[in-house]
């Protein structure tokens, strides 16, 4: 499992806009870079990121090799109700990871 850094508010006022920051440990190998032996290394990137709030997709992004290693994504969403916010990263070589945080909306 790759290490993940998530910044999600634990509490929020109903209807307020919250900022979420997500970072995951990943090499994001571009597929253009030769290694020490001069052989081009196969592409190994995370190509999709999805954020679900209470099961509904509120943000998603398609990533390319132009995204830096350890992809960082920041975005906003509206705090609608208390519930789980889950984050899913999908990548090459069957990479898939999901993390969940809980938010309390008052």
């Amino acid at each position, binding site marked *: 499992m790759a290490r993940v850094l998530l910044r999600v508010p634990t509490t929020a006022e109903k209807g307020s*806009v*919250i900022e979420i920051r997500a970072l995951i440990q990943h090499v994001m190998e*571009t597929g*253009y*870079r*030769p290694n020490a032996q001069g052989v*081009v290394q196969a592409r190994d990137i995370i190509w999709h990121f999805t954020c679900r*709030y209470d099961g*509904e*997709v*509120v*943000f*998603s*992004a*398609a*990533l*390319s*090799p*132009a*995204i*830096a*290693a*350890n*992809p*960082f*994504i*920041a*975005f*906003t*969403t*509206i705090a*609608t109700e208390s519930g789980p916010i889950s984050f899913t990263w999908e990548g090459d070589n069957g990479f898939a990871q999901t993390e969940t945080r809980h938010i309390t909306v008052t």
Partner: protein
Amino acid sequence: MNLTRRVLLSAPAALLLPTPTRADQQRLAAALQEFTGGAALREGRVRIEISPLVENGNAVPISVSVEAPMTAADHVRRIGVFNERNPQPNVITAQFSPRSGRAYVATHIRLATSQALVAVAEMSDGSFWSQRVEVVVTLAACIEG
């Protein structure tokens, strides 16, 4: 005589400026065309925030925001970021909805060399807006070894 002097003085500045080839420009235009589906692309409403002088192209912070009320009737559907001179023109394509609250996305990107970046926003009414910025990179990302 005057001409030589002018040419000499402008030489260092010319080294710093990106010099895109025709192929780069065509590739970027093709990527934009694919994103918009041939619709007209207008300047404005989109704001790219990126340092104009980048020391390390391996991880360049960038954020894109769009002026939009983000209501069900008027919101941003997608934001696409494209580059001119990396091996691939696409950088990131993000999907938004009225639940986003704001049309904003930030990430860290790789830049192979000094080049232009274009951010395009697709609105819910089907219009496309864009902004273009030129970025100077002093240390390139090791994208192509």
